[in-house]
């Protein structure tokens, strides 16, 4: 598990993948390589983070070509990471574990947005917002703009607004079963609440989770059983 804060939030998923390969090599982590014409290290990531979004809890799986000592590894890797990246926890996973992408299906975000004037009763507006049967957004795809309902992908949402600062905390769906983007939640909420944004928003992913049988746990907790 690692953090992606500060300027690191501006790296795209692809740029971050490259960064990890090189940093792990600098830390002398013995990466297992794929076979074939163009061998590459076997590293897999949790759900991709949009450019500009920070995160307190990202995950990556690294396959090694030999067993190594875990004690001190975190410090060794952290000494080789660019500003903004930091490993928080390392755990060993069984060789045949499912890839992260396949199991992670929940993401929690806080969204900070300056607005012109706060609404008086943000709690009521939030209730009404969540009371909607359908929340439609427009999404650009390769085949053009498509309409999509994201209501069923929003599991919880809290909003506060004070001194022109709107803060939303929301738990949404992510992963292969469907993906709700934090920017989409913000934009529909601003529209619904009739709030006028000033300047760019600041989004932080607080966590990635796995929902199994109605229980939301972290990927590391899944590992611990």
């Amino acid at each position, binding site marked *: 598990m690692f953090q992606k804060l500060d300027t690191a939030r501006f790296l*795209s998923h692809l740029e971050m993948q490259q*960064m990890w390969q*090189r940093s792990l090599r600098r830390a002398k982590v013995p990466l297992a390589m794929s076979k074939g014409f*163009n061998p590459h290290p076997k590293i897999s990531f949790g759900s991709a983070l949009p450019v500009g979004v920070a995160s307190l809890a990202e995950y990556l799986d690294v396959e090694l070509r030999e067993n190594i000592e875990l004690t001190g590894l975190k410090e060794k890797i952290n000494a080789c990471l660019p500003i903004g990246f930091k490993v928080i926890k390392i755990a060993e996973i069984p060789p045949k574990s499912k890839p992260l992408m396949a199991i992670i299906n929940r993401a929690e975000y806080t969204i900070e947005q300056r607005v012109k004037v706060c609404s008086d009763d943000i709690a009521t507006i939030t209730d009404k917002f969540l009371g909607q049967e359908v929340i439609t957004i427009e999404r650009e795809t390769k085949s053009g703009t498509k309409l999509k309902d994201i209501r069923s992908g929003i599991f919880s949402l809290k909003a506060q607004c004070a001194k022109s600062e709107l803060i939303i905390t929301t738990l949404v769906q992510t992963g292969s079963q469907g993906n709700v983007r934090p920017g989409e939640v913000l934009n529909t909420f601003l529209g619904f609440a009739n709030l006028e944004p000033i300047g*760019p928003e600041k989004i932080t992913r607080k966590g990635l989770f796995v929902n199994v049988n109605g229980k939301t746990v972290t990927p590391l907790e899944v590992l611990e059983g």
Partner: protein
Amino acid sequence: MQNLKQYIQDEILVRVEKPARYLGNEWNSIHKSWDKDKIKMAFCFPDIYEIAMSHLGMRILYGLINKREDFIMERCFAPWVDMEQILREKNIPLFSLESYRPLQDFDVVGFTLQYEMSYTNILNMLNLGGIALEREQRDNDSPLVIAGGPCVYNPEPLAPFVDCFLIGDSEELLPEFLEVLKKHKMGDWSKEKFLAAIKTMPGIYVPKFYEFKWADSGLLQEIIALDDAPSQVKKLIITDFDKAYFPTDPIIPYIEAVHDRIMLEVARGCTRGCRFCQAGIVYRPVREKSPKTLYEQAKKSIENTGYDEISLTSLSTADYSSIKPVIEGLLEKHAGEGIGVSLPSLRVDAFSVEIAKEIQKVRKTGLTFAPEAGTQRLRDVINKGVTSADLEKAVKGAFDAGWTQIKLYFMIGLPTETFEDVKGIADLAYKVLEWGQEVLKNNKNFKRIKVTVSTSSFVPKAHTPFQWEPQNTISELEEKQQYLKSLLKDRRITYNYHDAKTSFLEAIISKGDRRIGKVLKRAWELGCKFDSWSEYFKYDKWLQAFRECEIDPEFYAYRRRDYDEIFPWDVIDVGVTKNYLKSEHRKALQEALTHDCRYEDCPGCGICNRFGVDLEMFRGEQSAY
């Protein structure tokens, strides 16, 4: 500049494409405190991050200069158009990546001149950085604007804008230059006195001390050196290349650069003597690094970068005396860690394919050969010592070793070229197909055979035997491109070619003079920038700039020069004599070859005896021949 940095990161970076271009805190980037008595230089590359970060020269100078406690070097690149628009809207000056300081806060703003089509970006960056374009408009406290790099051997088109040019190997020149600057900055700073003092330093060209007189015909009549400036500026070269500084901890770009790997320079200079090639002349003599040095530099680079590929770079890496043992040595040491070795280009011969086979044990890529011309006659004209038999051996060897895609590079518009020579390119492409079919007759890869033909248009360059030659006109080039296209109809052959209009401008600027500076400025005012990006190249604006400046572009590109004509770049002494270039030009027209002095007698180009140098080579047990 904390405030500017915070503001840009909070408010602006979310609005631009690829914001990681502007962060400046990559791994191995160097952030120094801005003390008053340090000399601060911005290294400017007039193109975007991904291209700039591929540049070996910057890696060398950034490491070398920052090693010195009393010097600071930071990077500054051309912002992409979206960023530029925001900077202009919000009135934010162009800033360096490390400390986010405006260009105008530096003592020295230095540009690397990699290609002529980046010159409008230089003007744009100066303007964005709050620095007046013309050197005469800048006051005593404005930064010194300097330039170096391969295009500096004809500095004149940029003479109105640049205070001084560094001619030669900058790892020797730049520290000396900054040293003198430091002494001057410690006293009462006078830019005028400083420029006067350095005008006699080896390798330094200060354009304000040179007056160019033109006849009514437009021809250059005389170059007058003023105030005891040397009549010719000799380039400065490092002689003990093996011991020269080389960076083993380059900055690791956040965004994939065009060349995103360890670049290990095995040699500088080339003795092949291809007559169209400017680098082959201006980087003489050949200086090689010892295998021992290369192994040490490779090991450190791998540890410090985390890269998984080492590119052995030079103008012609297969010519490096110990190339085979060095590749074997590197693979033996590092292949186990998943590190591959690559070469930027291959010679057209069986030996190169041998080497390629060695390398591809780790990683497979395409194979590219550059015969440059389609017929033996024309290859003799350009002194490309390659025969059809060489190509046959190389190509068959490649197919035999498992490659199925061969790329071939050619130039069109070379001196004396006829349509027969152009047809020769197509004939060669078909021959390569045939050879592939022959080798892979009963092979499952038979259907995968592919040949890509790429042509660039010949640009006659300063300091080459072809500097007297006119360029083909745009319509001639386009006609040849279309003719070749009509001949390459097989679906297994792909044909790519360059825009002839860009080549036309390149020819004008690369053989241009001070008067072209006016055109550059006008073109920039009319909105020209990123000229090497086809989507931003505005040919009509360039033509308008020429018209408004009353300068005939064809005078520069299409005119055959006389042997006794004085060239603007004659003010620079690259070591190779003009007489030698003349004799090479004559030999070209006679289709006569000049052999490589590495293997045969000295043809007398002049560099070794005139500069008191010699070829520096380390022959391994398995030399190329």
